Structures are given as C-alpha cells and as structure tokens.
C-alpha cells in the first residue's frame, strides 16, 4: 500500500530504510524512526480501535504518552503484549499488532450497538445495574463484564524475556530532555555534578524537535543535538532515552523504566527487554514539560480529531499528514504553528479561533501566509463515523454561552488545542502541594517538600527564553549546592515568537435541541453528561466523582481529560477550580510492565534456596524434598514404588527398631559467649539456667512478652562462658533478632555476644536403640556408656580426624545423639555414619518420619507452638520457674491464660484404628449437630503410629486434661469426613520417657 499521507522530504525519519509491518493482519510499510502510529497514519489508517463502553470507532489523538485511544495488542518475538500505545511503539521489521476492544473486527464491531443503547449505560451503570439478583453475578454479570472490560489480552505463557533492576546514585536526576532539562543538565554537568538525564522518547529535545525557535544562533533542534552530544561525552553524565521516570518516592528515591529492547524485533543477547532503575538522587530537576488539552465539543472522539501539537509532531518528526483538509480549532496561539506547518507543506488549513480578534506575531504570520482564520468561531460537532468528513461550526458569543447559525465545513481532520497542562505528576508524587495558576488555568507545583525543583512548562512557564535562563540558573545553583564548585556557563541567546493570551474556554455549548456526545475521558468513554449526572446524584468530592464515573481512571490516567473534568465540576458547582481540587497523582505515571517490576526475582530466583552440605548425598539416594522455609529438606527417601506414606512408615519403624539418621543441619544455631551468658539464658528461657554444668545440655522454652511460646530447643554449655543454642528451623532468624534486641536495648549491661552459626555446623541426628553401638564405632576411643555420656550430656570427639561435637539429645523419644561437625565436613560425617551404620541396619529418615516419631511421643513442635498457645497449653508447666523472672512471665498470670477450661494438648485415636484424621479437623461432641457446631478443639498434627500401627493425632482442645477418655468426633468438612475418636494422653509412646535415658 502506498503511503499517501507521507510528505516527500520533511521529517526526522530515515527514508533509506524501509520497514514492513502488519496491522490487523494487513501488511504495510514505514521507515526507520517511525512509530507504529506515524506509520499507520502515513498509510491513511485512522481506525485503530473501538472505545471501551460504546465501542465507537477510535483513531489517534496524540503522539506520545498521553494517547488515550491507540492502544494495541503487540506480537513481538512470539510473545503477545497488551496495553501498548501505538504512539510510543517504535517500528521495527516484522512488527505485528492488532486492535483491541472489538469483535469480530475493528471495522464491524457488534459491541457498537451499545452506542445506540447509551441511555442504559450512564455513569455508575455497573453499580446501579449489576446489583441483583445475587445468583446472576457469577453466571451472567461477571462473565459479561470480563469480556467487555480491559484493553487486550494478557499472555498466559511464561515470559521468556529478561528484565533487570539497577540501583543508581547521583547528584542530580533530570526528568525530561526538553529545553528546560537540557539547560539544567548542561549547567549542572559543567559544574561537576554527577547527572542522570532521562528522556521518555527515543529522540532527545522535547518541544525543540518541533518548534521554530533559535537558540545561540542555531535552530532549537540543532542546539539540542549539540548539547546532547556534549553531555554524552562527559564522564559525569549518564544520558538515557526511552527511559520514563514514573515514580517519585520517599527520600528522593525515584524509579525509572528503561525500554532497552522494545524497539527491536528481539532482545539482543545478554540484554534485558526492560530495566528498572532505582535512583537515589541528591536533587531532582523535573522538566517533564506539558501536555496539550483539548476543547470539548460534540462527537469529539471521531477518528481524525487530534491534538494540534500531535498533528505538528507527525508533520515535523515523521513527515506525515494527519489530513489533507485540516481544520485547526484553538483558543490560543500555539496551534497556529500547526497551521503554518501545514501551509508550508502545501496544505491549506482553516483556523477557527474562539478568541475575538487577538493580536500577536504568529497570528500576523499566519495571515501573511494567506491562511484563512475565523475568529470567534468554534467547532460544534464533528461529522463522520469512522473518520471526520466535515464539521459543524458556528460563531460564539463573547460570553461563550450562545452559538450562532450552524454552518457545515468540509474537512478530514480537526486539530484541536485548548492550551497546555503542566505535567506535575512527579512533583505531586514527591509530596509537593500543588497550586492553581489562574493565568494558565492549570495546577503548577507549589512549595517543594523533598529536594525537587520543577522548571520549564512543567512549572507553567511557556516562554522559551525564561525557561532556558531559569533552567540554566537552577542547574548551576543545585550543582553548586552539592559539589561546592562555582563554574557557571553562559546562557545562550534565545529568539522566539511572542504569544498573546489564550482564551479561558474549554467546552463548546450544545446547540438547541441537540444531544451530542461530548467526551471528556476518551479511553473510558466518560462524557460531559456523565459528570453532570453524577453531580445531580449528589457526588461532590472530586475523588468520588472520579470513581463513580471512572473519569481519568483508564490506562492514560486522564492526561488529556482530568483538567477539563475539573473545569466541568467547578462550572456546575459554581466553584472555582482550586477549591474543587484535583485527584491524587500516584505512581506510575505511565503503565509499567509487571515483568519489569518483578525483575530477576522469578521462579527459583524469587528467594534463595538453602541446601545442607549433605544435599547431594540426599539427591543421589532418592530423597524427595520439601520446602522448610528457604531450606530444602529430605521429606523421605523413596525405595522402589513407595509413596510418602509407606516410606515414612518404614523409616520411622526402623528408628524404633534399629537406628536411623536424619540431617538436622537446618536447625538454627546461635553461639553465645560472655561472662553473663548464663544470666541471659536465665532471662530468655522459662526454666532455670544458672546451675547448668559445663558439658550438659538443657531443653528450654522461650516466650514472647505476651506469654505466648516463641520457640523451643536445647542449649548446651560448651565451656565456662560459652553456650551453643539451637532453635527451630523456622524461628532461627527471629530468635537471633530477639536476643539482639534484649542485649542491645533492654539489658545492655549484660556482657554477652551472640552470633548465628547455623551455616557453620552440619548436623546429623542418630536415633534408635542401636545408636550407641553405632556411635561407639564412630568414636572407638570414647567412653559413650550411659555413665560416660548420660542423657543430656555433651562431649567432643575426633571423627577420623575431624573434630566433632557430640550431644546426647533426642527428639524422637529414642536413645539418640546429635553430631555436629564443621559444614565442610558434613558430607564426610554423613557418609561415615551410613558406612559404619550398615551393620546396624541404619536407614536415613526424612522430615515425615521425624514428625511421626515426635507426634507419637507427644513432643510439641511448630504445629502446637503456633503463636497462639502458652507453655501451659502445651503441658510444659514443669519448665516454668517459680523462683525467677523471665521474658513473658508476667503475662502468664493473665486471667484467660490460667482459666480452668484453658486448652491443652491431647492425643486423639480413631475408634476404628484405621482412619487417619486430617490435620485441621474440628473436635465436636455431636457429629450431626446444627451448624455452627460448637468446636472443642482442633487436630494440630497427625501421623501413623509405628509403635501401635494405627493412626494417631495431636489436638489442642478446651479443658483437654479432663477430656481424656471421652469419645468425640473429628469433623473435616473440607475432606467430607466425620470420624469417631477417643481422646487419650498426648504421650502415646513411652510416657515415662525411659528409652531416652536407657
């Protein structure tokens, strides 16, 4: 297809490089340097989508981030991506995109029927309509809304692209490379500051790319190119294009998204698709410019109605005509530049100016060029459905309330300008309280809260000379403040055409007896009448009006609509705009892909995986792993066709019968040293610690200050002032922080040091009646008899040349030991244990067997110490010292904690001795009672008792002690089970604890 709307020689595109691309399956050509939007317009394609609610045809409105219409679904490198603005997407060879929000096609869209039923789709339609009947919600309303809502389709595939995060620090971050940004960056860089200059577009220069000005005896564009080239060569400057600073957070932390590869057919090797920069800047210069706002008139959403500045950008940057019979509708001077540009390229525009005979240099120039200008004229409505065909225009009275006779004028596009809105998003996000500037009818930044300064048109300055001189000055001042350098560069001479005042006019009144749709928010289809309705219905706060009508809530966040919405509210309410206020600006300024936010923290990279030094042995021996926090632990070792149940039963039974070995490296370990170490333990644990002799271990429970059990474990006295504390795997980090808190803040007088040694020691638990015999083989020279190393004893030994710590402690209820060696020797220790254990029929056991062994012994663990239970609940009364104070002791006197009916840990056995009780089941008296069935307790942990060969569970139940012997039911509505059970003691196996002492 020929590019009938492309000019022959203007523009900043590379005409030597033709690029082919597909839109809605049809093949087109563009040039290197085009955006998808400019290339489509060059090919005469104006219809790119359908609107959100009424499915009206939509074309292009802007030429950048403010674009509300042209949102497409992109296909790039076999990945699909929604919510891409065609005005931002650079063209590359083989690009494919399609329209969204239309079915079956953009040319014929069934949903457009909504357009004729618009009476049924007023503001708050969803709130009003989809309320009843309740049963309709899931079946009818939600599927309907889901189908109708949203722009495009998210991919369900794994995203194979790579995204990166980068942290950066700088003296001065400058957001925007227009005249203000370039001036500030240049002055600051020349004064020795470390500068980052960010530009959202591929080309640097902002408005200088399209304006007719002269800076330092060069064109604005040439000056911008010269400055950028010089900045790029400076070692203290980072210049980034395609990089949007989208969020301003606390303490001058800004986040910028850099589109590294989106403009290429595929990402280069070792290069990410996008990179998110977290920038901590000492000072920020916001030079984000301004966005043109439209004047509201009838059918102003018709394809062919564009912003005047966008039409100019298409002409000057891309050499593309948005139309061949343009109508320029304006209330200010800037749109005259657009008209003049058309004229220079041989196209005759007609200007409608709402002002009554304004006078200025540029108006004179337009007149001299022979451009037809109609003053006090407005566009009442656009005619045409899929493209503007003509316009209804009329003269307007000086008070802007009455229209003259409607005339029809032929045109194929309407370039509209309602003056400029400073882009204050970043300033506002920084906490700056914005203020209303009457002169420009818009909000500008007020007093700075963080170290931020706004310059140029973002600060409401629309005069280039002032912008450049003040930005040079700010760049110099800020850099001087940071670097103390005093190297000031001179400000260049600026010549530009002076503009006269704009007309404070934003909405064309409706002609008599006509009901035309006048759109405010083009993306969410919010019209003037929607806002009026919301106000009639009593909505007052601008934040409520926004949410009720969805004004400014689309993906463009109302960049072209918010201010006109405020004008309307203030008109109807008869208030001034500043008292209506604006809605809160929140990051991100433009949509950011989820991939960029997540960065490299995906899948297994989302958190570290901790592995014991024995991990590879477990892998080689068919271990099936389970996540224990960040750790990977063997859950069971699979033999043949065994599943979890058979394997864990086999492993646990072998511990009870012979001997087993379990990797306990993951247990938290804390080294405690100092003359006051015993005193610290005495205050942290509930039992007494001052008299623990060297070479002995003790079990301890620690509480939070609210009396709830925090953690349990054994601590061993290695030498006079040296202790080795163990914690549960899950609480290791919390316990260390807890000890540090008390040592640093509460009892700094205690002379103790604590340090985590979890990863320095590898641990193996050897448990079972044959464990002593095995241990003797491992340490042939040591006296390991019951007298030589009694229960809770500690000694050190030599494991074939490796120093080892030997603890006689047990979690399984069997005779058991725990060996610790330096991590590097962990695998050596393990292999020795297995090698020498063979003759005792040793088997490794995993966490499932470990649980079985502790449950049937009635040892409480994480499922009972669940952050809601006291030591009494867990039957740990014997560990509560009456004589001394400790953390949390005072709370144990609380009425509820000592109540008679307080919960206790008990054992539960099914009456049929066959049915396993699901964890989480509720214990009730009457299985068939009416809901809500009073709950007496819940099953905290379940296992298959290898000692008795039947299921056994632990439960936490009200008045548990007095319930022993009672017959109840365990109900699990989730698993649809009702199991008759008997309550028994939690100490199901070896209740007197004889085995561990044998």
């Amino acid at each position: 297809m020929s590019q009938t709307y492309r000019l022959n020689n203007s523009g900043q595109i590379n005409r030597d490089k033709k690029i082919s691309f597909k839109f809605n399956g049809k093949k087109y050509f563009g040039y290197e340097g085009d955006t998808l939007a400019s290339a489509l317009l060059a090919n005469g394609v104006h219809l790119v989508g359908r609107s959100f609610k009424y499915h009206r045809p939509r074309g292009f409105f802007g030429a950048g981030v403010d674009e509300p219409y042209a949102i497409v679904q992109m296909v790039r490198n076999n990945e699909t991506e929604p919510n891409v603005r065609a005005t931002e997407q650079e063209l590359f060879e083989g690009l494919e995109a399609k329209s969204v929000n239309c079915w079956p096609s953009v040319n014929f869209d069934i949903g457009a029927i909504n357009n004729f039923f618009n009476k049924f789709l007023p503001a708050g339609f969803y709130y009003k309509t989809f309320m009843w009947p309740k049963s309709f919600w899931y079946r009818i309303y939600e599927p309907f809304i889901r189908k109708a809502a949203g722009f495009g389709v998210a991919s369900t595939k794994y995203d194979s692209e790579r995204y990166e995060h980068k942290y950066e620090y700088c003296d001065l971050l400058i957001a925007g490379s227009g005249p203000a940004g370039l001036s500030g960056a240049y002055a600051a860089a020349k004064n020795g500051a470390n500068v980052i200059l960010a530009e959202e577009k591929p080309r640097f220069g902002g408005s200088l790319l399209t304006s007719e000005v002269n800076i330092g005896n060069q064109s604005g564009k040439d000056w911008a190119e010269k400055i950028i080239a010089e900045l790029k060569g400076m070692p203290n400057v980072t210049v980034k294009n395609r990089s949007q600073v989208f969020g301003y957070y606390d303490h001058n932390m800004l986040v910028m998204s850099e589109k590294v590869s989106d403009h290429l057919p595929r990402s280069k090797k070792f290069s990410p698709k996008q990179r998110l920069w977290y920038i901590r800047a000492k000072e920020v210069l916001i030079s984000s410019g301004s966005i043109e706002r439209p004047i509201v008139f009838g059918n102003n959403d018709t394809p062919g109605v564009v912003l005047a500045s966008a039409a100019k950008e298409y002409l000057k940057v891309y050499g593309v005509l948005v139309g061949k019979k343009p109508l320029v509708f304006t209330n200010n001077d800037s749109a005259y530049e657009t008209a003049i540009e058309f004229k220079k390229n041989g196209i005759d525009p007609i200007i409608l100016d709402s002002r009554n005979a304004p006078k200025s240099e540029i108006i004179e120039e337009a007149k001299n060029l022979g451009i037809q200008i109609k003053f006090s004229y407005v566009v009442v409505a656009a005619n045409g459905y899929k493209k503007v065909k003509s316009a209804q225009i009329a003269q307007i009275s000086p008070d802007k309330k009455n229209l003259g006779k409607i005339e029809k004028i032929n045109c194929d596009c309407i370039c509209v300008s309602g003056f400029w809105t400073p882009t204050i998003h970043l300033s506002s996000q920084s906490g700056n309280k914005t203020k209303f500037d009457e002169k420009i009818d818009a909000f500008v930044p007020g007093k700075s809260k963080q170290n931020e300064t706004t310059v140029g048109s973002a600060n409401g300055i629309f005069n280039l000379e002032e912008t450049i001189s003040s930005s040079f000055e700010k760049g110099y001042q800020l850099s001087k403040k940071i670097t103390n350098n005093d190297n000031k560069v001179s400000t260049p001479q600026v010549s530009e055409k002076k503009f006269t005042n704009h007309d404070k006019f934003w909405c064309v009144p409706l002609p008599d007896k006509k009901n035309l749709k006048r759109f405010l928010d083009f993306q969410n289809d919010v019209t003037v009448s929607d806002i009026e309705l919301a106000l009639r219905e009593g909505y007052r706060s601008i934040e409520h009006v926004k949410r009720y009508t969805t004004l400014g809530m689309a993906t463009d966040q109302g960049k072209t609509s918010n201010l006109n919405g405020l004008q309307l509210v203030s008109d109807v309410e008869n208030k001034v705009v500043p008292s209506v206020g604006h809605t809160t600006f929140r990051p991100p300024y433009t949509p950011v892909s989820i991939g960029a936010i997540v960065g490299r923290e995906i899948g297994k990279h989302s958190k570290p995986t901790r592995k014991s030094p024995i991990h590879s042995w477990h892998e080689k021996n068919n271990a099936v792993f389970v996540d224990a926090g960040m750790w990977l632990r063997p859950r069971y070792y699979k033999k043949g066709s065994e599943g979890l149940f058979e394997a864990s039963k086999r492993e646990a039974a072998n511990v009870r019968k012979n001997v087993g070995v379990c990797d306990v490296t993951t247990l938290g370990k804390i080294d405690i040293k100092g003359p006051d170490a015993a005193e610290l333990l005495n205050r942290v644990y509930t039992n007494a610690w001052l008299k623990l002799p060297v070479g002995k271990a003790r079990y301890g429970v620690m509480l939070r200050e609210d009396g709830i059990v925090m953690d349990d474990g054994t601590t061993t006295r290695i030498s006079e002032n040296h202790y080795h504390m163990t914690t549960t795997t899950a609480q290791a980090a919390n316990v260390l922080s807890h000890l540090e808190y008390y040592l640093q803040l509460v009892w700094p007088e205690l002379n103790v040091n604590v340090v985590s040694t979890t990863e320095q020691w590898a641990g193996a638990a050897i448990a079972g009646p044959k464990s002593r015999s095995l241990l003797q083989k491992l340490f042939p020279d040591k006296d390991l008899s019951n007298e030589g190393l009694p229960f809770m004893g500690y000694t050190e030994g030599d494991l074939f040349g490796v120093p080892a710590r030997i603890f006689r402690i047990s979690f399984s209820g069997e005779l058991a030991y725990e060996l610790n060696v330096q991590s590097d020797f962990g695998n050596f220790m393990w292999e020795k244990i297995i090698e020498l254990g063979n003759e005792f029929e040793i088997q490794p056991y995993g966490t499932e067997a470990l649980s079985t062994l502790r449950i049937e012994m009635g040892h409480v663990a994480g499922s009972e110490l669940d952050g809601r239970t006291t030591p009494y609940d867990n039957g740990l009364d014997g560990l509560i010292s009456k004589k001394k104070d400790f953390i949390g002791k005072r709370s144990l006197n609380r009425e509820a904690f000592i109540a008679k009916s307080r919960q206790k840990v008990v054992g539960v056995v099914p009456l049929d001795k066959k049915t396993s009780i699901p964890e989480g089941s509720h214990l009730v008296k009457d299985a068939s009672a009416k809901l809500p069935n009073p709950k007496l307790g819940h099953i905290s942990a379940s296992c298959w008792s290898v000692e008795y060969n039947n299921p056994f569970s632990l439960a936490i139940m009200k008045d548990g002690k007095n319930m022993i012997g009672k017959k109840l039911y365990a109900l699990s509505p989730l698993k649809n089970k009702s199991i008759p059970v008997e309550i028994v003691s939690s100490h199901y196996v070896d209740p007197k604890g004889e085995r561990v002492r044998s």
Partner: protein
Amino acid sequence: MLYIKCPYCGLRSQNEFAYGGDGTVKRPTLNKEVSDKEWDNFVYNRKSPRGKHVELWHHISGCRQWIKVQRDTVTHEIFKTVSADKEI
C-alpha cells in the same frame, strides 16, 4: 523507600532494615511488681502519633544493630538516628 542513617554504617536504604516498633517503650525491670495496667501498657498499648516519633529499626542486613530513629510519621522526614544505648 526511606534512606536511614545507621549510626554505624551511614546512609543505607530501607530494604536493609527491619522495622522494630515504638522506640519509646520501656520494659519494666525484672523481678519488680507490676500492675496489670502497667504490664498491659507495656505489652499491648501503643500510641500512633501524627508527626515526630521515635521508633526502632534493626539493621538486619547490615551491622545487625538495633537503632533509634526519630521520624515524622506524616512526611517520613528523618530528623535523627542514634545507637540503641542513646536517648533521643
């Protein structure tokens, strides 16, 4: 993200720290008779002041020291940071 000056390590980003709650709470001394009300106030009751507030932060991915930070709860401005043994 806050920028917190650790008295030991200097200015570091918030993601190196863990928040540790109200820094003005004093634990009753051990072995001292404490009324229910006094204990409740220590364990549960916290003020949520608007404006200047002293809070604890733990430099958990740094030097592992607990520090006191005086911060404005509205503006997030940090006025002062000191080591655990000092008062603000």
